[in-house]
Each structure stands twice: as structure tokens, then as C-alpha cells.
């Protein structure tokens, strides 16, 4: 990749005996919406902190817009927007005060870059005199995003912006990120929600400090090499147990009212499975062939 916006090469970082990041490498081109998908403790936050010049790596090199995270940290901080997972707002300042505080720190004003945040800010502007601490979860995240954008950064890092946020606000937040992408800002975002992966241009699936896979979401799905059926019956909990016992089944995972079973291609017959489930006392059995989703793929990579 020529002149990537974010470059990470062989980065490792430990805390005591815990390896938070273990030899991570990847590149993100300018203007990409790049997702880090993985559970808590996978190493996502450590990586963000290294790229945001807040933590030094033990090994490896990393750069943002061609600037080295160790040598050029002061320059990076000027062109970077960072929305950390835990803290980014002053709860006892109002919506507007938070925003102008961040603008002032970066030597700019709300008016100067209003265009960039307009779409998002207009939704919370009616409450601009309200203290940030009294906003709902979804609105806090919108304000925090505005604060991370107010100095018109070249790159933004969003560490779990949708954790603990309800399904409606999550959809809205991602709509905002898609629109933001049009201003050619590089966006790196992390999330524990697998369904959000499909909204990124490319994703890295990360677990225990290692990247299991980096690809376009549709390619991750295309690379899934097992056959997958969704099975339903009236008794979901028993169904999971009984499917586990069925010979040839590689994995059984609950997905809402269905169970997904994975197996080597063409080794099972629907008719036989149907018979087996009737014998084990199930009723209203439905079996259908399905395409995997990102969560199926993630779990498959985890058990490999």
C-alpha cells in the first residue's frame, strides 16, 4: 500500500505477563472505514492508545499519516481525533461547553468547522445547555463524536463508541460514520458487536492480542469453508444439546430462536437429521441452509 493513512508493523505490547498485543501488522488506506471487531480484553484499546501516542509499544513501528507514533507524537496529536471508550466528556459541563472546550484546545472554534459536525450536532443542539451527565447514552456518544471532530482531524479513532448503546442509537451512529467517510477522513472504529462489522469497508477480527483475520466483510463470509444450517424446534435449549450429540456436527451455536450447525460440506442429510430430532422428541422442526454471518465466522476462527 502506498502512503497508508495508518501503518502498523509488528507491534507488541505487554502489561506484566499479559500480552495485550502480539506482533500485530496492518495498513489502512486514506479515507477507509476500518473496523476492529473483538471482545473486551482482545487488545483493541491498547492498539488505539499506541496509535494515539498515549502508550509506547514494546516492539514494532507504527505511523499515522506518515508520522511516527514515537518520534512525531506532538504532530500526530494535532491531526488526530480520538474518542476513548471510557472518558471523553466533562459531565458537569453543558453540551455546548464541552464542544467549545475541545475546539479551544485545538485552537479553533465551533463556527470554523461547523460544517463537518452539522449533521450530528443538530440532533443534540436543542439540548445544548444541558449538562453532559444528564444526556442519554446515545446522545453522549453523539456529543463525544462531535468533540473528536471539531478540529477537522485527518484520522479519527473511535474506541467502542456503541458499547452499552441501544439498538436504535447504534444504527444512527453508524449512519453518521458512513456520511463522515465522504469527507475523506480515515476512520478506525472498534466494537464488540459482530453485526457492525458488515458496515465497515474492511475489518480485523481480533482475539487475545492477535489478529485472526483482516478482510472485507463479504470476503470473510466467502472464506467460510463449512456448510451451515439453521435448525429450529419448539424446545430451543434441548435442541442445542441434542444437536451437539449428532455425529458429524462440528459446532452448534444459538442464534435467537435458531441453532446454527456447521459441518464439513455435504456430509449430512437434512432428512436424517430431521428423523433424529423427531426421535429425540422435537416437534415443529425446521431446517434450512443458510449463509454464514460475521458472528459465525468469528466463532469458527475462535475454535480453530
Amino acid at each position: 500500500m502506498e502512503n497508508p493513512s495508518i501503518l502498523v508493523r509488528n507491534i507488541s505490547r505487554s502489561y506484566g505477563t499479559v500480552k495485550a498485543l502480539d506482533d500485530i501488522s496492518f495498513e489502512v488506506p486514506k479515507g477507509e472505514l476500518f473496523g476492529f471487531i473483538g471482545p473486551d480484553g482482545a487488545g483493541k484499546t491498547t492498539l488505539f492508545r499506541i496509535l494515539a501516542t498515549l502508550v509506547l509499544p514494546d516492539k514494532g513501528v507504527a505511523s499515522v499519516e506518515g508520522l511516527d507514533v514515537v518520534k512525531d507524537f506532538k504532530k500526530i496529536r494535532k491531526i488526530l481525533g480520538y474518542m476513548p471508550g471510557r472518558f471523553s466528556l466533562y459531565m458537569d459541563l453543558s453540551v455546548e461547553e464541552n464542544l467549545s472546550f475541545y475546539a479551544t484546545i485545538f485552537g479553533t472554534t465551533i463556527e470554523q468547522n461547523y460544517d463537518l459536525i452539522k449533521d450530528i450536532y443538530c440532533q443534540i443542539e436543542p439540548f445544548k445547555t444541558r449538562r453532559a451527565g444528564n444526556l442519554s447514552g446515545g446522545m453522549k456518544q453523539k456529543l463525544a463524536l462531535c468533540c473528536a471532530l471539531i478540529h477537522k482531524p485527518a484520522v479519527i479513532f473511535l474506541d467502542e463508541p456503541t458499547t452499552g448503546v441501544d439498538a436504535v442509537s447504534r444504527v444512527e451512529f453508524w449512519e453518521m460514520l458512513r456520511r463522515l467517510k465522504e469527507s475523506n477522513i480515515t476512520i478506525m472504529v472498534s466494537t464488540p458487536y459482530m453485526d457492525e462489522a458488515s458496515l465497515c469497508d474492511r475489518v480485523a477480527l481480533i482475539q487475545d492480542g492477535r489478529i485472526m483475520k483482516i478482510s472485507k466483510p463479504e470476503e470473510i463470509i466467502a472464506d467460510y469453508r463449512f456448510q451451515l444450517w439453521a435448525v429450529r424446534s419448539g424446545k430451543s435449549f434441548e435442541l442445542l444439546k441434542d444437536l451437539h450429540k449428532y455425529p458429524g456436527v462440528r459446532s452448534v451455536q444459538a442464534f435467537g430462536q435458531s441453532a446454527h450447525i456447521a459441518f464439513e460440506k455435504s456430509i449430512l442429510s437434512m432428512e436424517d437429521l430431521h428423523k433424529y430430532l423427531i426421535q429425540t422428541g422435537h416437534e415443529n422442526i425446521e431446517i434450512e441452509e443458510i449463509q454464514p454471518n460475521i458472528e459465525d465466522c468469528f466463532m469458527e476462527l475462535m475454535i480453530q
Partner: protein
Amino acid sequence: MDSMVENIITVKNLVKKFGHFVANDHLNFEVRKGEIFGFLGANGAGKTTAIRILCGLSYPTSGEVKVGGLDIYSQRNDIKRNIGYMSQKFSLYDDLTVYENIRFYAGIYGLSRKEISTKSAMLMKKLGLEDAKDKLIKDVPLGWKQKLAFSVAIIHDPKIVFLDEPTGGVDPITRRQFWNLIFEAAKDGITVFVTTHYMDEAEYCDRVTIMVDGKIAALDTPSALKKTYSASNMNDVFLKLARVKTVA
């Protein structure tokens, strides 16, 4: 409806105000004994307020609430003995070991010394934590912590356990293992009252209620809700109900 159904929680006209703000606006619902009851809603819809009242941590402004047959105004301490509670934010003490945490919670819930030693041995075996017995909680992976937190929340065999976003942030396999623990507890007769932002988990519940703006907008089985709102999954149901109001 089954005439044998026994209600373990009854809520009639529950209102909770903070100043002029109405967090719970005339809630009416029942939770049946032994069911897994999903309590959903957007951020700020009033879920936490209602849970705090049901757990005896806060008084309603008005309304009639009974938990396990006990009155929320006059029998709060008895209620606390009969319920378990676990939240994502806080559950275990980081600087105590696995065993110390179990002993601590069992002690708080009034288990005898003998009960504590048999229960904790059983629990550690069940969770495969025997080798981690003397590890500090802060050194235990999140997935284990959450399973342990759930187990200590029901160590005193409560009638009801309240789970407030128990699976936030854990990996997809651990999330499913956690639900197996929930199913097992329900099978043993414990009523489960659970909140979540994962809509696939809403489908694991026997019945689901969706709160919007301090009111109950829907309450039914997941399949009935999907039918009513012509939705293919609970996520669509949720979006249809909760999207109407967003910025407020």
C-alpha cells in the same frame, strides 16, 4: 392463558418521578414464576429505574409492587433476601481471589459455614475454576468473571435473579455459554429478569417487554411480537417501536 400460572412479580400503576421528569409512567406487568423475562428499551427509557425499585433499592412515587409476594414498601429487607442481582458494571471485587469472592457473597446472603464450603466447591467445579481458586479476580478473564458473577448472584437459591446487561462486551462464544447458565437456572426454578442490548438474546426469553419513554410499549412472547409488528427478528421489532422517538 394457563390458569395455573403463578406470578412472582406484580406491578400495578407504578410511577416514579424525579422532579418533573417521569421515569416510569404507570407501568403494569406481571412476571410469571420460572420464566425468563426480557426487559428491553432504549437508553434512558426507564429500565434501570424500574429494576432499582423491584430490587428494593428505591421507592416508587406511587403504585403497587410485589416481588415474590412481598410488598415493596414494607418488606424491602425480605425482598433482598429473596433476590439475586448482577450487573455488567459491578459484580466482583477485583482485589479478592475467586474463592474469597464466593465466600464473601455467600456470607452476605447468610449461608452457614458448612453451606459455604460445599457450595463454593460445587461452584468452582461446575465452572472449571478449581485451578483458579486463589487467583485475584483482576487476573481472571472477563468471560470467567461474568460466569462467576452470575453464579454468586444465585448462590443463596433466590426466587428471582435480576441481570442488568450481563453479557456486554464478552466474546460470542462466552455470551452463549452464559445463556446456557441462564437456561439452567431457569430450569432449576429461578425466575430470570434480564436486560440486554443484544437483540438475538431477546429471542431466548419466554416473554419480552419493550419500554419506550417510561412506558411499556409492548409485552409478549418473542414470536407473538414478531407477528404483531410483521418483523423477521427482534431487532426489527425493537427498531419499529423505539425508533419513533429518538432524540428526547
